[in-house]
C-alpha cells in the first residue's frame, strides 16, 4: 500500500538554505547538501527546494546547487522558483531534480503546464497554488507571493484552477493555503477537502502545520497524499521519526 509522504520544504538563496522571518531577514541555516542529507536520514520521503531568489530577481534556478544535491541525495526532490520555460525546466531536470514545481508562470501562461507534461511526462510536473479565502467565501489564487509587496490577485477561483491545471497535464498539485500559512494553527482542512474532491492526481497539503495532530488531520480528514512543512521541521518543533511513529499509531500508512 502506498505511504503518505512527509515533505520538508527548504528555502534556498545563493546556494545556502535560509529561514525567512516574514519574507525578510533571512537567517542562514546551513549548507544545502548537509541539510538535505540530515532530512533524508530523519526519514523525509521527499524534499522541496524553493529558490527564493530566482523569481524576484527575474532569473531561473541556479543549476549548480541542484547538481550538488543530486550527487549526494538518494530520495526524490522537487525544485521550485523561477522556472518559466521548457528549456529552464530541462536544465533543472538534467541537473538531477526529479520534479519541477511551477506557480506564477503557470497562471500567467497555462499552456506551460502542457508543454512541460509533453516534454517530460506528467510525473515531473507539479503545479503549486497559493490560495486565499476572500470576503465572498470563495478561495482565489495569488501570484508573485515570493514578496508581499509584489503579490497579485488575478481573480481566478482556486477550484477552477485546480481543474484546469489537471486537464493541462499537472501530475501533482501542491495547495498552499495562505490563510493558515506560518500560523501553525493547522492545515486548512475545509479547503483541502474541497480541492481533494476534484483532484485526481496526488495532492500535497501546505501551510499551517504546527503539531503532529495537524498532519494526521490532513491525511485522515482531507485524504491528502503528502504533507509539506517548513518551520516545524527547521525549528526542531517536530522530529520526523517521532511524527511518523505517531501517524502510524493512528493507522496512517507511512514509510519508517
Amino acid at each position, binding site marked *: *500500500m*502506498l*505511504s*503518505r*509522504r512527509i515533505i520538508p520544504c527548504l528555502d534556498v538563496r545563493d546556494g545556502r538554505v535560509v529561514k525567512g522571518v516574514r519574507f525578510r531577514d533571512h537567517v542562514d541555516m546551513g549548507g544545502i547538501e548537509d541539510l538535505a542529507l540530515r532530512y*533524508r536520514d530523519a526519514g523525509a*520521503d521527499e524534499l522541496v527546494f524553493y529558490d527564493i531568489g530566482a523569481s524576484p530577481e527575474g532569473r531561473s534556478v541556479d543549476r549548480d546547487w541542484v547538481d550538488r544535491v*543530486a*550527487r*549526494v541525495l*538518494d*530520495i*526524490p526532490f522537487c525544485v521550485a522558483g523561477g522556472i518559466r520555460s521548457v528549456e529552464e525546466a*530541462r536544465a533543472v*531536470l*538534467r*541537473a*538531477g531534480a*526529479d520534479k519541477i514545481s511551477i506557480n506564477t508562470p503557470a497562471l500567467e501562461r497555462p499552456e506551460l503546464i502542457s508543454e512541460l507534461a509533453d516534454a*517530460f*511526462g*506528467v*510525473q*515531473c510536473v507539479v503545479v503549486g497554488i497559493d490560495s486565499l479565502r476572500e470576503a465572498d467565501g470563495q478561495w482565489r489564487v495569488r501570484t508573485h507571493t515570493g514578496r508581499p509587496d509584489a503579490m497579485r490577485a488575478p481573480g481566478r477561483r482556486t477550484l477552477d484552477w485546480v481543474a484546469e491545471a489537471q486537464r493541462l497535464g499537472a*501530475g*501533482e498539485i501542491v495547495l498552499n493555503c495562505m490563510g493558515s500559512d506560518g500560523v501553525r494553527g493547522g492545515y486548512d482542512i475545509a479547503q483541502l477537502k474541497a480541492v481533494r474532491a476534484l483532484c*485526481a*492526481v*496526488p495532492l500535497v497539503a501546505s501551510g499551517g502545520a504546527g503539531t503532529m495532530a495537524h498532519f494526521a488531520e490532513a491525511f485522515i480528514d482531507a*485524504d491528502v*497524499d*503528502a504533507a509539506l512543512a517548513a518551520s516545524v521541521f527547521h525549528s526542531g518543533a517536530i522530529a520526523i521519526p517521532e511524527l511518523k511513529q505517531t501517524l502510524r499509531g493512528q493507522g496512517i500508512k507511512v*514509510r519508517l
Partner: protein
Amino acid sequence: MDVAVIDAGGANFGSVCHALQRLGARPRIVRDAEGLAGAARVLLPGVGAAGEGMRRLQAQGLVAPLRALRVPLLGICLGMQLLFEASEEGAVDGLGLLPGRVRRLAGGPGLRVPHMGWNTLDPVSASPLLDGIAAGAAAYFVHGYAAEVTEDCVAACSHGERFAALVQRGKVAGAQFHPERSAAVGARLLDNFLQWNPT
C-alpha cells in the same frame, strides 16, 4: 566496474549515474551501439512514454544490440517496461526480452494515477537481487503503466492491483521503482545488480 547507462531521453539518467558513483562504479553515458562495447553491466533508465522510448532506442541503433546483450542488463521504470513484449501505452512493441505485457494502472477511488510515492516490495521468489532487502521494504515509484505479474517477477507491489516491481530472467532484470531515489533499499538493489553474476 564499467557500467553503460543508456541515455534514452529520460531525465533520470544523471541521477542513476550519481547513484552508481556512490557505490564506487564507473558509469558512462551511452547513446549508440558502439558505446556498449566493454561494459560489464548495462542500465536502461527511462522516464516518459513507451512509444517515444522505443523510437529513441531505434534511432540510436540500440534495439538489436540490447536484444543480443551478453552482460547483465537492468531496466529502470520505463526502461523495465520496454523489456517486455508490448505496452498499451502508444500500442508499441517492446524489446521482447521478457514475456508479458505492460498495462495502464486502472486507478479508482483513493488510488491516484500516476502511482507516485513510497510503496512496499512483496517478494514472490528468491533472487540474489533481493539480498539484504526485507519483505515490506519501501521503494519509490512514479509511473502510470506497469507490467503484469509473470513467472519472472521476483517482487510485486500493489496499487489497487498487483503488478511487477522487480523482475529477473537470465541476465535481464528490471525495477519498476527508482533505485536511485529509494534511499538505502535502492542502493542495495543497485549494489546487488553490480555484484550479480547470472549464468
